[in-house]
């Protein structure tokens, strides 16, 4: 059964300077034991989407659309019950997500007491087991330590232990390794892959790093300025990217295997979502834009399971011309 399905999700924020449409008409789903990567740059709506699923948006947000978790509608009441149990989230900065006044073990045990009704002793025993499962060495000793006594990588392992303590159907990892060093990032991402295989949890990996997507996701959703611009199985997306934004992003990411005279770079900056450009939001920065791009493109299939929101798709027509 589909772990999470999102249909026609829109999120707006009321701000002093007008209504900000952070996300518009977004649809996707995630299957158990699979990783969906949501990719995009600052302000594309990827984090707002995660928070909307969890029901953690600020009160000035308006959310519309349909979401189901394991087949049942994800209402605000269900979100409240499911949070930390059926669905969990880890964030970029583990130091600000952990409570500095409680030990690592207590914070894992809290989830187990709350959602599984375990008594303190049993919850603490399970907490130590969880810390072992996220490969924290000397888990029993570490369980008695406070967040400031742990390294950044260790803190993110504790966050993962908390998130997975109640065997969630869905785990949202929002830039889980962006604050970590590259060698520690590799450890944490490998751990998430292993745990996903063991538990069958569906994972939404929110990231700006296409390298991470390439190595760790089965499905990809690329977002730009609040809308989906491309969605495909990861292998198909990297073999044959169709949206100009995806192509620019791939060219802008510096690679290790060769020094290039110039990186591909996307001119200009992302639009202000209080006054987005009409039609395709990428058109002002797109080298392929034509008059038709003044109208909003449909998010249509170019190949089975591969969608793109571009009037010029498939782009091979551009090359043939």
């Amino acid at each position: 059964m589909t772990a999470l399905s999102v249909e026609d999700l829109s999120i707006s924020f009321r701000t002093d300077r007008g209504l900000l449409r952070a996300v518009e008409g977004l649809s996707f789903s995630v299957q158990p034991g699979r990783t969906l990567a949501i990719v995009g740059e600052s302000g594309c709506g990827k984090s707002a989407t995660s928070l909307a699923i969890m029901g953690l948006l600020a009160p000035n947000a308006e959310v519309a659309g349909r979401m189901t978790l394991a087949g049942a509608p994800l209402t605000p009441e269900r979100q409240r019950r499911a949070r930390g149990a059926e669905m969990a989230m880890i964030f970029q900065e583990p130091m600000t997500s952990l409570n500095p006044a409680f030990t690592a073990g207590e914070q894992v045990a809290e989830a187990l007491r709350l959602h599984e009704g375990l008594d303190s002793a049993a919850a603490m025993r399970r907490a130590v087991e969880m810390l072992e499962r996220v490969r924290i060495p000397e888990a029993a000793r570490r369980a008695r330590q406070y967040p400031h006594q742990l390294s950044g990588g260790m803190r993110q392992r504790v966050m993962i232990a908390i998130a997975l303590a109640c065997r969630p159907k869905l785990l949202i990892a929002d830039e889980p390794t962006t604050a970590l060093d590259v060698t520690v990032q590799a450890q944490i991402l490998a751990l998430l892959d292993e745990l996903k295989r063991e538990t069958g949890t569906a994972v939404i990996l929110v990231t700006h790093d296409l390298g991470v997507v390439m190595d760790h996701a089965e499905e990809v959703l690329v977002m730009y300025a609040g809308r989906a611009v491309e969605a495909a199985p990861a292998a198909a997306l990297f073999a044959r990217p169709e949206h100009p934004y995806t192509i620019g992003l791939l060219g802008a990411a510096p690679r290790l295997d060769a020094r290039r005279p110039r990186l591909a770079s996307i001119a200009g900056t992302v639009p202000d979502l209080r006054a987005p450009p009409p039609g395709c939001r990428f058109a002002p920065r797109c080298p392929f834009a034509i008059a038709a791009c003044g109208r909003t493109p449909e998010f249509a299939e170019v190949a089975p399971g591969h969608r793109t929101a571009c009037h010029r798709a498939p782009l091979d027509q551009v090359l043939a011309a």
Partner: protein
Amino acid sequence: MSASDRQRAEPQEAASTGGVNRPRNTVPILEADDLVKHFPIRNALGRRVGAVRAVDGVSLSVARGETLAIVGESGCGKSTLGRLLLRLIEPDSGALRFEGEDLRALAPAALRARRRAMQLVFQDPFASLDPRMTVEAAIMEPLKLHGLHRGRERARVAELLARVGLRPELARRWPHEFSGGQRQRIAIARALASEPRLVIGDEPVSALDVSVQAQVVNLLKGLIEELGLTFILISHDLGVVRQIADRVAVMYLGRIVEEGPAEAIFRAPRHPYTRALLAAVPGQGGKVQVLEGDVPSPVNPPPGCRFHTRCPHAEPRCRAEAPTLGAGGPGHFAACHLQDALPPAPPLSERAPDARLERLQAFFTRETAA
């Protein structure tokens, strides 16, 4: 021969083997010898109870016109080293020469005058610009300070803005009106205002989104080439380093563990740490040998080779005896007892060239302004 002697003899070799052929002066623009900086840790009574050994014996020599990258993970001492190299903080010991002149012997006023030739660009463009100064005032400040372009400061500011890809009309605006990428362009224009010969960039593109990062990387490459700048890039991002650097120094726990021409460091790394760092970069297929554990504390670095606690090849000797930088190729040094005995470095995963993607990406590579 000590490590520092070897490094002093090194720039000529690098010039002959490096990928970029630029005329080079034989006197290095910047030389550091055995720099040490420890930050004391004090208890509640102010007594010294230990020290963070941020930089613990680093020697470097930078040739004129070259781009040297100093890479490493957080806490390796790379930012402290950058500040030491400009004498923004005082080393505990060691020597520092800029264009042959002893920087540590300069009186404060003379040092300030010398700073005109050495500038720094920081990571966070939101923190490095004064929010109460217009762009024009911010860029004009160094001109006034050093008495440059007297009487035509405005015109010079406009030239500098144009050079970093910003419209000169933007000069009267305030920093908050700009995006992160535009702000970093402003910070670069301000650094260039005093016509420096040496620029140090401390993670200059790390805070930027990928597409904007590429714009600024291209801008920096163009400026380095056209102005003949000597550039020291301090970065944790090996992809960015690959695009800019002629030579690379890898730091681990306060020391340089490997140094050499960029091509050699990326193609044939000799130190196990450099290899692990390269293998950990995502986007290479995912099936990498993951380095175990965390970086040990720089307060109490391990004895012997500082990397031995995480090194898959460590032998008893590595736990007892600290390796010095030893030659492993032309201009290429590694501080590893086993560097000649290690298996060859696994090749970087190279994606087969994708003709369709390259043709499509070519549409994006024209000159871009912000």
